[in-house]
């Protein structure tokens, strides 16, 4: 809604206090042997990219992986497009990394950027996060099959919602699901909510029939039984509270979907430097501390690097483009 934290950063406050005025001049006077790095975060403090990016930086600093220090900067705006644009502009800068993920892939399309995430230098994928299909406790849909049957029978009487704007994970997932089960994505009634809070409210008040989102924010309601999960989107079931919720594949729907996050570097950096950056993240991933961070945050470990990650990006980029085309947004 109106100005929320998304327009403000922790750095902002530091600047406001006059404590970190020097931070604005970053990246200008770095020597060749400088080992310091910048980590750019494309959304606000506390958001998904921020948590992942800061966790990774925390581990690398604690283990002194790079031999230098890190500076984390939140660059907000346009679902990550502002940060991605700056990253493309920093071509050849070998001291910058950016945390990104599926949402940034989509935002490059939604915002009509003249480049894609695949134009940057792929470093590594770090984690993935399953999505879930949520309904209110008294919903007539007991299983994902009930939902699919009703959806196919009359797509325009099922209002669904998610916590992302068009092009984001919570939007892409239901659209791909619709397409897989034979509902035309352009018939889907999708309401974009401003995050998990408003989405929960709409579900609890029976304003929409189904919600699509990562499950972390709904723990309280799932535990109390006010909301039910019909399916999870990954290859395997999740542990804990939703251990008995089937995957889509188990329910006979040929779709796996995951929101994921990873790290990019600016385009046109030397192969040697790229190798070094990959090695930093490899070392970070192999540490005990990172494995603990994965557990604490409920993230699934999904680590691929370099060219393999590049291929994955290509494939994701294609998939996003296809979905947005089907919905009629491209």
């Amino acid at each position, binding site marked *: 809604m109106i100005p929320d934290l998304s327009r403000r950063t922790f750095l902002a*406050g530091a600047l*406001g206090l006059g404590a970190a005025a020097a931070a604005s001049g970053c990246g200008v006077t770095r020597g060749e042997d400088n080992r310091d790095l910048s980590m750019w975060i494309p959304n606000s403090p506390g958001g998904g990219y921020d948590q992942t990016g800061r966790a990774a930086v925390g581990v690398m600093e604690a283990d002194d992986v790079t031999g230098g220090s890190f500076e984390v900067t939140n660059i907000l705006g346009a679902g990550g497009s502002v940060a991605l644009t700056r990253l493309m502009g920093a071509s050849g800068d070998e001291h910058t990394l950016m945390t990104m993920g599926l949402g940034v892939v989509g935002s490059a399309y939604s915002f009509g950027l003249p480049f894609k995430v695949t134009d940057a230098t792929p470093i590594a994928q770090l984690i993935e996060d399953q999505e879930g299909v949520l309904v209110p406790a008294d919903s007539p849909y007991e299983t994902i099959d009930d939902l699919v049957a009703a959806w196919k029978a009359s797509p325009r009487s099922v209002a669904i919602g998610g916590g992302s704007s068009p092009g984001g994970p919570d939007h892409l997932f239901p659209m791909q699901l619709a397409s897989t089960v034979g509902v035309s994505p352009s018939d889907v009634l999708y309401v974009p909510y401003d995050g998990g809070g408003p989405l929960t409210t709409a579900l609890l008040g029976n304003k929409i029939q189904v919600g699509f989102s990562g499950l972390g924010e709904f723990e309280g309601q799932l535990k109390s039984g006010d909301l039910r999960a019909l399916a999870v989107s990954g290859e395997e079931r999740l542990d804990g509270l939703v251990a008995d919720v089937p995957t889509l594949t188990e329910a006979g729907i040929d779709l796996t979907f995951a929101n994921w996050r990873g790290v990019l570097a600016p385009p046109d950096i030397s192969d040697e430097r790229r190798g070094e950056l990959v090695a930093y993240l490899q070392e970070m991933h192999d540490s005990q501390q990172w494995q603990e961070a994965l557990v604490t945050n409920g993230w699934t470990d999904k680590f691929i690097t370099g060219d393999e990650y590049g291929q994955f990006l290509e494939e994701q980029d294609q998939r996003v483009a296809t979905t947005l085309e089907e919905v009629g947004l491209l």
Partner: protein
Amino acid sequence: MDSLSLLGDGLASAISPENLLYAAIGVLLGTFVGVLPGIGPAMAVALLLPVTAGLEATQAFIMFAGIYYGGMYGGSTTSILLNTPGESASVMTAIEGNKMAKKGRAAQALATAAVGSFIAGTLGTLGVVFFAPALASIAVDIGAPSYFAIALMSVVLVTAVLGASKLRGFIALFLGLTIGLVGLDLNTGQPRLDLGMTQLADPLNVVVVAVGIFALGEALWVAAHLRRTPLQITPVGQPFLGRDDWRRSWGPWLRGTALGFPFGAIPAGGAETPTFLSYIAEKKLTKHPEEFGHGAIEGVAGPEAANNASAAGTLVPLLALGLPVTATASIMLAAFRSYGIVPGPQLMDEQPDLVWTLLASLLIGNTLLLIINLPLAPAWARLLRIPRPQLYAGILFFATLGAYATNVDPFDILLLLVFGLLGLAMRRFGIPVLPLILGVILGPLMEMKLREALTISDGSPSALVSEPLAVVVYVFIVLAVAGPPLVRRLRGGGSDRNTPEREKELV
């Protein structure tokens, strides 16, 4: 009263000299950070949260409550003194508050804001204590159709503040609504008025718009006239609230509280709408309509109380449902989690002592805010005795810093300048700024709710009257629009008694 005795236990465990010291430190830190332009309570809390690390839960809550209330009050202070609101909910405070400050009544404006915040915060917190579970279950039933109706009502009521020249007022309102269109279309991702710039892909920050139009516009206006007008020393006036001020403030404090609390308690209500409704209500009810637009104390007391009551109200969905509905609430949620509190339906049953301690801490923080800031009001007010060139240079400096700091993007400074020039032009041509700001705030809200309602119903307009609250609001709108002319006609008198009075409002 079971709740009352539990709250008493909470208070007992929270009050100790050491804890009060933490509360006092929190209030002071919060106020000083909140005073910086561009930093609202959400930012203040986020910035100062690390300060509470390492404290045990009770002490952390108390300090946190102090920071929170201090941050809110700090935002009002800049609105009143410098015309630079720190967040959208204190925009309304700037309207009358800054006019009061110019008349030498800054101390009174600050005092009525402080007392109003205290009363609203206390009543609001007590409201949370007694009504949280009941309100929470009602709140989720209020959906997009009702929000749209309320937003529409607000837009209709804007006509009440259009000023003497309706034409100029509507120009300002539609300018505001147009500015509110900037950004990506919510449902289709189509860019609107973005001039091909990614920086304009998100809705404009209301704070940057308001600071540009209010503070920068005014600084430019003053600069343009500095040589031609004789130097005016802002009178310092009485240090505290006079008897007349008290008499005129208590009504707005209570009405503002009554308006603000429900808006906070229903998720997605937003804190701006009640401040705005409170302003309108006070303008209609006041016995001194001629003072509105020139520094009416009611116009500060009401919106300030509404702002604080709404902030307390957001604790209802936060504690009872685990739903953070404002930026500040999301930060609070993160803070609670770090102490093992998982807000949600089970919280009241599972960790009652923590909840009561928290609520007690809020009451203590609120009280200390009043004790510490009321005596400071005259000191703050003295800031205005700085000679004008230096004062405005300072305002420009902080406004620019605030705009830049929000996103560390030079583009925002450009944006600020553009709105500053717009503000200057509006002053030059006598176009009121208030309808513009309301357009910027209400336009996107109205659009979002309308489209949500229509998406859910697959485009059927009957959805708009599908909720009882929405119907009630529409009936009210019809009465408000059709009522007065009808009554006049029935009375047989065609003359509008308000006309001569309204003429005076022309800037």
